[in-house]
C-alpha cells in the first residue's frame, strides 16, 4: 500500500502511543459490532425471524457500552495527555465516529423492531433489500478502514459512495408505493419495508460521515457540508 502516508515516529511519551492505539482498536471493535448488527437485523427482517430480531435489540447494549467506554477514554486522553495536531484531530474524530456508529446501531435495532409487524406475504422489492443493506455496510467498512489505515484515497471514495445506494433505495421506495396501490393486502409489509429503506439511507449517510472524519484526521480539512448533496 505505497499510497499510504509514512509511519510516524513514536511519541517520546509512550503512553500516548498506547492510548491512541487502544482508541483505534476500540473503533474497530465497535465498527465490527455495528456492522454485524445491521447484517443480522436485515437477515431477521427478510426471514421474518423474531428470535433473531430480539437478539439484535439485546445486542445493542454492547454497542452502547462500547460508545460510553470510547467516549470516556477520549476525554481522559484529552485531559491527561493533551494531544496536539494530528493526534488531537484523531481523538476528536474518534469522539464523532462513535456517535455515528451508535446511531447506525440504533437503526439496526429499528430494522429488527420492524419484523414484529410483518406477515408471511413476500414482496418482490424485498429481494433488493439485502444487497442494498450490504452496500450500506460496505461503505461503513470502507470508511472505518480508511480511518484506521489513514488512507486518503479510500476515504475520498467512501465520502460519496452513499449516492448510488441512496438512489437505488429511493427507486425501491417508488416500487413499494406502486405495490401498495396495486395490492392492498401487501400494505403492511410494504410500509415496513419502506421504513427499512429509509433506515438504510440513514446508515449509508452516517457511514460517509465517518469517511469525512477520516479525511479530516489525515488532512486537517473539514469537508463537511461543502459540496451540495442531492436532497
Amino acid at each position: 500500500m505505497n499510497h499510504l502516508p509514512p509511519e510516524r515516529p513514536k511519541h517520546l511519551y509512550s503512553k500516548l502511543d498506547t492510548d491512541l492505539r487502544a482508541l483505534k482498536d476500540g473503533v474497530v471493535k465497535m465498527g465490527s459490532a455495528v456492522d454485524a448488527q445491521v447484517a443480522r437485523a436485515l437477515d431477521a427482517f427478510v426471514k421474518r425471524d423474531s428470535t433473531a430480531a430480539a437478539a439484535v435489540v439485546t445486542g445493542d447494549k454492547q454497542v452502547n457500552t462500547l460508545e460510553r467506554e470510547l467516549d470516556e477514554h477520549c476525554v481522559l486522553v484529552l485531559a491527561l495527555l493533551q494531544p496536539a495536531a494530528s493526534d488531537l484531530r484523531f481523538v476528536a474524530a474518534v469522539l464523532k465516529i462513535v456517535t455515528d456508529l451508535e446511531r447506525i446501531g440504533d437503526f439496526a435495532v429499528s430494522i429488527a423492531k420492524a419484523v414484529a409487524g410483518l406477515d408471511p406475504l413476500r414482496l418482490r422489492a424485498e429481494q433488493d433489500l439485502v444487497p442494498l443493506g450490504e452496500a450500506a455496510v460496505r461503505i461503513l467498512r470502507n470508511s472505518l478502514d480508511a480511518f484506521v489505515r489513514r488512507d486518503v484515497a479510500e476515504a475520498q471514495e467512501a465520502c460519496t459512495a452513499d449516492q448510488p445506494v441512496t438512489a437505488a433505495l429511493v427507486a425501491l421506495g417508488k416500487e413499494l408505493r406502486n405495490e401498495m396501490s396495486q395490492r392492498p393486502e401487501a400494505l403492511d409489509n410494504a410500509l415496513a419495508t419502506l421504513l427499512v429503506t429509509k433506515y438504510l439511507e440513514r446508515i449509508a449517510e452516517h457511514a460517509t460521515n465517518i469517511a469525512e472524519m477520516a479525511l479530516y484526521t489525515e488532512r486537517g480539512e473539514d469537508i463537511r457540508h461543502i459540496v451540495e448533496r442531492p436532497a
Partner: protein
Amino acid sequence: MADERAASLRAERLDLFYGDFQALKQVSVRIAANRLTSLIGPSGCGKSTLLRVFNRMNDVVPGCRIRGSVEVAGESIYAAGVDPSALRRRVGMVFQRPNPFPFSVFENVVYGPRIHGSARGDELSAICTACLKAVGLWEELREKLEESALELSLEQMQRLCIARALALQPQVLLMDEPCSALDPVATLRVETLMRELSRSYTVLVVTHNMQQAARISDDTGFMLLGELIEFGPTKSLFTHPRDSRTEDYVTGRYG
C-alpha cells in the same frame, strides 16, 4: 498597506553568528503589533537569540554578528547611528528569573524614567502608580512602596519587573520564559496579565511550555536548529501544522 503598518517587529533573511557558530539561519518573520506571539522549539533552537535580536541584547555577546535586516516599527535597528539604549527603551525585556534591583518597590518601578531623566518628582509617583496598576500589583503594594523589592513573592517580583519595563512606555515587550520560575497558579495569573498587555503592546514571548504558547498566543513560531520552520496563527499550528517537523514537535514526537 494596513498589514505593513501592523508589523511591529520584522526580520528579513536574518543570519546570526556567535563566532563560527550560526545560531540563526535565514530567518524571515513579521510579528504583528498589539498581538501576543510565542516562539517555541527545543533548547538551543535559537528562539532566545531571535528574541534578543529585537533589542540588540546580543550585541554584548563577544563575536556576535548578524547579516540581514531587522526592523522595529519600520525602522532598521542595526543601521549606523542607532543608539541601543534608546532602542531598549522602546523594546522592553522581562527575563526568566525575576531580577528586581535591591531597592524599594517604588525605586524599582521608576528606575528607568529616573536614569533616563524623562520624569521627576510627582511624575515619577504617577508613573509608579500607573505601572503597578497595569500589572495588578497596586492594591497589594500601595502601602509597601518603600519596602525592599527583594521581600516580594516570586510572582510579585516578576510583575514588578514587568511594571519596571512598562515605566519607559515601550512599544514592545520581549519576554524570555517569564513564567518558568513561577508556580502553576502564579503562572496562570501572569499569563492573564500577558494577554491584557498584548492589547496595548506588541508582546513576544519565548517559552518551553507548549501548552502556555497554545493558551496565550495569537501567533506562534516553531524554531529548530536556528531556522524558523513554521510561523502562523496559534490555532493552526496546534491543530494542523503545515510542516512535518512542527507536527512531530507539537505532538511530542521530536527526539
